């Protein structure tokens, strides 16, 4: 089971859209996929039309009184399940802080599902907190959507530095950054992309363009591939998934 996390310290960069669409692509390619919506805003949960409620809440999962498996809901797509968001996730840091060995709690909660899923995608809230550190411990790779703007580039570098500075905490963790919400016709976007690629040649090649289809996800409440199969954005997520799989295979 590979654990991936869509993560960025900054909000509004396309984390949830990436988590939902990549999960949908992976499931349609035959993978058994679980998305865990860790963001109390519950956008991934909303996209899948599932009620944002976990019996026992974040506390139950952190304390181990709620089995993560009992919280899972099937989505409308075969092989694609979800652990819904719950408003109590806003206190996840507090519960983790109270727990023994807080950084391994998320990893331990996932361990019982290793036979059931090939891929887990954690959709994380935008912050560096105890929750995100727990995610770093649990994940094999961070998928970092990055808008080609100055602020986004700064946060990407902050993350890169954080990982470098904590080699013990994030052993084996791979950072797979990619450009998201890209407007190719904008010269500034192109320039920032070139600059960042120069500094970080490891960035993924695939670029997720800005698109109406991705915005329509909120109206359709479905992954792009489910209502706009073959569209530019659907194809972009397919290419991105293929590239991620290839990178993970060569890890």
């Amino acid at each position, binding site marked *: 089971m590979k654990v991936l996390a869509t993560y960025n310290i900054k909000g509004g960069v396309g984390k949830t859209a990436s988590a939902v669409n990549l999960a949908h692509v992976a499931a349609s*390619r*035959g993978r058994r996929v679980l998305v865990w919506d860790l963001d109390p805003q519950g956008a991934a949960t909303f996209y899948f039309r599932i009620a944002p409620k976990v019996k026992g809440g974040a506390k139950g999962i952190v304390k181990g009184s709620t089995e993560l498996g009992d919280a899972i809901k099937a989505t*409308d797509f075969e092989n694609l399940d979800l652990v819904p968001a719950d408003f109590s996730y806003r206190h996840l840091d507090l519960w983790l802080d109270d727990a023994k060995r807080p950084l391994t709690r998320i990893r331990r909660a996932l361990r019982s599902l290793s036979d059931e899923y090939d891929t887990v995608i954690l959709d994380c809230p935008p912050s560096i907190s105890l929750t995100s550190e727990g995610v770093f411990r649990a994940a094999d790779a961070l998928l970092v959507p990055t808008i080609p703007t100055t602020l986004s580039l700064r946060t990407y570098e902050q993350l890169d530095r954080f990982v470098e500075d904590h080699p013990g905490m994030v052993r084996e963790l791979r950072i797979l950054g990619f450009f998201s919400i890209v407007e190719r016709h904008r010269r500034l976007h192109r320039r920032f992309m070139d600059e960042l690629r120069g500094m970080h040649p490891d960035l993924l090649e695939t670029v997720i363009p800005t698109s109406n289809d991705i915005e329509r996800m909120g109206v359709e409440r479905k992954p792009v591939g489910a209502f706009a199969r073959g569209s530019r954005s659907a194809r972009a997520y397919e290419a991105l998934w293929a590239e991620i799989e290839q990178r993970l295979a060569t890890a």
Partner: protein
Amino acid sequence: MIEVERYEVVGAGDVGAVVDVLVGSMGLRIDRDEDVTRTLLDTAAGAVAAAGAVLEHRLATEGTAALVWSESGRVLDRLDDVPREIPATLDGIDLPRAASLGAAPLVPGDPVRSRIIALSCVDEAEKTTVRVVVDRTLDDEDRPLPILLEVVPLRGYRGEAERLVGELQRTVAIRTSVTGSTDRVRPMVTGSIGPVRTMTAAEGWRAALRDLTAVMSERFPGVLRGDDPEELHGFRVAIRRIRTLLRDGGGVLSPADRTRFRADFLWLGDVTTPTRDADVHVLDHPTFVTALPADRREGLGPLLDVLLAHRAEVHAEMVRDLRSVRRAEFGAAWATWLDDDVRWAPAVAPRAGDPVLDVAVAAARRACRRLVKDGRAVRKSSPPVVLHDLRKDAKRVRYLLECFTPVFDAASVETVTERLRSLQDSLGTFQDAAVQARALQALVDARDDVAPETLIAVGGVIEHLDRVSDRARRRVAGDIGRFDDRKVRRAMERLDRTKGRDER
């Protein structure tokens, strides 16, 4: 994965009326309603079936076509707007779950006509909580088979599925069915591709194993349906033959593959044994009746109900095992192995590149020597387990001879098989009767609702079985003597006689 629940509408049934109940009274939504000709597709080695999957080409009456990949009764992949013609391979067709088939040629089965209606139960957010499939399939003569209803619960929505089934049971006359919609598509008709003399040992073993795998694939739907004991019997014989070929494939197959698949086929044989035993009990019930004095026969009436109930229980258990992840994973690995040329290259094992005739003859002679040696050691006082092992020795010889019949000298095979058959009959009768007697005793012991007259009648049957078993045992010594003679030895020596002729 949560299991699909299957029901059959009792009586003739009217699809329209059933759908009206589901949509009108129960609020389900129709996702798809199609009138289709369904054709099962698989490779010659049965790669799809071996993976626990079903691949269908569905041609709709309005001319559109789709490819549908299902596992455990769930449609996992569907590709619409494919060509109307049945594809020769899946090369270039984007059906992810079938990717492992690559460019392997597909063999179509016999087409069947069905109306399939897929419905969903949705909540207030329009989220699907339960799926329902209604299947009305026509038989060979265009007569409708019973309507099938499949309830597909989704994880986390078990309660909704239970409520739906409860409501269905109140409004439509249904009963549980062990088979589902995908079991109604007919298996492929496979031509024999068995071993021939010009092959290497690896090629010969591979051809024989493919043949047997095809037999298993053909029998599989019937095994699941459970309405014809012959289907399970044939399925099990194919398993035992495969096990023999794996056992005697040392030097031909790679040791790791051989070890792994021997364990898998042993498991597969084991999970089907209780159902086969139960089938034999039911089939033999009339014989039990006639074996009793007329005044005790009536007591056996309730025994048939007990046997049938037990048979239904063990069959349902077997179907669960045959639809399990373990079976699917092992099936997929088996099919991949059979199709992978690299793992059949001459270099994988020391005798893989030798002529099949040489290796198969050596295996058959080795098995025969073992049978003769063990047969000579049998005494009147030998415990049943010795005879049981002897029966296994005999089966091993028989299976090797039959699997490689096209390679061996036909007259020699016939001579050996004829003597062997008689020995096997005696050993089989001995063991089957002994096993049946024990099983019947255990079955009635386990129940506290068996009437005294039935107990007495069962006692009579057990006595009868003991007599049958004794008689068979007495015949074994003579049969061993007839097998262990010059004529059989000479035939075994001449198994490769055709080789000599060819070389001259």
